[in-house]
């Protein structure tokens, strides 16, 4: 019989925090600046400079830890991780090894077999590195330190996941919680969330772990799934052939669909961690921790419960809307303005989801404002525009967040309320379609639909179809 293997997966997830300044200096973390325009002596590692911790970094890290059921370390320190690479100007990265800020937590994920807890080993704070550009022309490397010192937290899980689906569920859960906290936007493609996958295989039924490898350079959920499948296969093949798995770091090449080992003699590492004497220890006292706990926002579970009580909308809608903090905020703010939860939910569930899918966007990319959506709902409610015009206006608003009232005015999209004009159009349609008129009179209900359509066309779509229908029936 063929041996059965089980995959054992743990994750190291780096999340870039949404602070305005870097972790140890007052430089901006904004994206898109010209090279080295967001740098200072601290984040370019000049001798004699003194790093000072950004309090917001600590608060975000504690908030994430609390959300993930962690113990908060009451006496916590930073350590230096020593290595030589030009993207790291100090020759050490300030990180936490001995006393990370959060430990021993868990998050709950949904699997096919029900709820499952994934353990959080620790969460620590650290700084990001600069960006290296390889200059083929000059045969040298060029360094931009704008990202150097941008705050990160690294969330280290226990090896509790068993397949790619669980890994994706775990990452989606982390992303959602962190977005709810506003601690990061967690975009894999843009690098504000990065996941390294530690994976080993073992025969089903064995207790001991196999030798693991660490996979880097995974920029999408799809790449993560494929890398997990590929690495599982590679390790099983090695074991079946009687070879050993080597503990190493591997780089995933998504274009080729394969990984290769990164470790070489030049990459030999010995980080020689030691406490950073420049950064005084952090003491988290009881009152401060209580304050932090009180500041935790309402998470998805709480929102779902509250929506069920407060709004008369389907459970399925609640699930979709609360899956994204942006969507939930948009929903609540629009409802506050127009007081119509069912209609707001409909616009989000149907047109918004359709356009997001068509444009390949995430809910976080939505640009239109709650006030504009509320205005559009009012325009449709008051029958200033009909429903197909409303969809057209919505699409324009989705793309450009313009004021729907102004747009309708400018483009002349208002429903024509002039009875005379409508009556004239209906008369013309009746005269021009004797066959359908006869069909209707002979009891063919369908014919009325055609006549309504013809009238709407004559009115260039700017009539109220209900009213047209009513008028047609009256005149026939």
């Amino acid at each position, binding site marked *: 019989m063929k041996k059965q293997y089980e995959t054992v997966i743990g994750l190291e997830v780096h999340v870039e925090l949404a*602070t*305005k*300044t870097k972790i140890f*200096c*007052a*430089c*901006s973390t904004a994206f898109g600046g*010209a*090279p*080295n*325009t*967001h*740098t*200072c*002596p601290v984040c*370019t590692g*000049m001798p004699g400079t003194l790093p*000072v*911790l*950004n*309090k*917001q*970094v*600590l608060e975000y890290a504690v908030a994430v830890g609390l959300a993930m059921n962690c113990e908060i370390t009451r006496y916590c*320190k930073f350590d230096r991780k020593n290595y*030589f*690479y*030009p993207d790291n100007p100090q020759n050490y990265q300030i990180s936490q090894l001995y006393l990370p800020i959060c430990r021993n937590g868990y998050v709950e994920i949904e699997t096919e077999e029900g709820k499952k807890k994934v353990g959080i080993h620790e969460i620590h704070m650290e700084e990001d590195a600069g960006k*290296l*550009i*390889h*200059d083929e022309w*000059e*045969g*040298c*490397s*060029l*360094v*931009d*330190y704008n990202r150097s010192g941008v705050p990160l937290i690294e969330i280290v899980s226990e090896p509790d996941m068993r397949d790619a689906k669980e890994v994706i569920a775990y990452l989606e859960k982390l992303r959602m919680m962190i977005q709810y906290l506003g601690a990061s936007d967690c975009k894999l493609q843009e690098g504000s969330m990065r996941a390294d996958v530690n994976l080993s295989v073992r025969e089903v039924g064995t207790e001991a772990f196999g030798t693991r490898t660490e996979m880097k350079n995974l920029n999408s959920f799809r790449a993560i799934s494929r890398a997990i499948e590929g690495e599982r296969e590679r390790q099983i093949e090695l074991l079946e052939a009687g070879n050993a798995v080597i503990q190493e770091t591997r*780089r995933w090449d998504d274009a080729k669909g394969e990984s290769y080992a*990164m470790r070489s*003699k*030049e990459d*030999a*590492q*010995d980080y020689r961690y*030691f*406490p950073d*004497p420049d*950064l*005084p*220890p*952090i*003491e988290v006292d009881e009152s401060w921790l209580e304050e932090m706990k009180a500041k935790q926002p309402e998470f998805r579970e709480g929102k779902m419960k509250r929506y069920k009580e407060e709004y008369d909308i389907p459970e399925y809608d609640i699930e979709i809307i609360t899956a994204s903090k942006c969507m939930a905020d948009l929903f609540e703010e629009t409802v506050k303005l127009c007081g119509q939860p069912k209609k707001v939910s409909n616009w989000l569930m149907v047109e918004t989801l359709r356009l997001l899918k068509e444009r390949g966007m995430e809910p976080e990319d939505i640009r239109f404002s709650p006030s504009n959506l509320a205005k559009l709902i009012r325009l449709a409610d008051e029958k200033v525009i009909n429903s197909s015009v409303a969809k057209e206006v919505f699409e324009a608003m989705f793309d450009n967040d313009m004021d729907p009232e102004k747009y309708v005015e400018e483009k002349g999209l208002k429903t024509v309320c002039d009875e005379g004009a409508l009556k004239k159009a209906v008369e013309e349609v009746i005269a021009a379609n004797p066959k359908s008129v006869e069909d209707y009179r002979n009891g063919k209900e369908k014919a009325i639909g055609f006549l309504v359509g013809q009238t709407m066309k004559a009115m260039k779509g700017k009539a109220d179809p209900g009213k047209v229908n009513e008028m047609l029936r009256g005149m026939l």
Partner: protein
Amino acid sequence: MANVISDETIEYVGILAKLELSGEEKEQAKADMGRMLDYIDKLGELDTSQAEPMSHVFGVRNVFRDDVVTNGDMCEDMLKNAPGEKNGMFIAPRTFE
């Protein structure tokens, strides 16, 4: 000398420190490092079981900064510290992924 540094160790430390040592230099470094370790070993003669490891000299705690941008564009000054500059970036030795 109680501590003897092996050829493998000095080779490995050389790699970590990105140093290329000649045969003669390696022998010298082995002897120096052995003596350093001997010196440190003196600590082992003391009973430190009751002593807290010390990482900070001053009793200062919780030194924080507010999350407010006060640094402007200092690119020009920062590049003065660079060994070389091109397109607003620091020139560094060629490195591979």
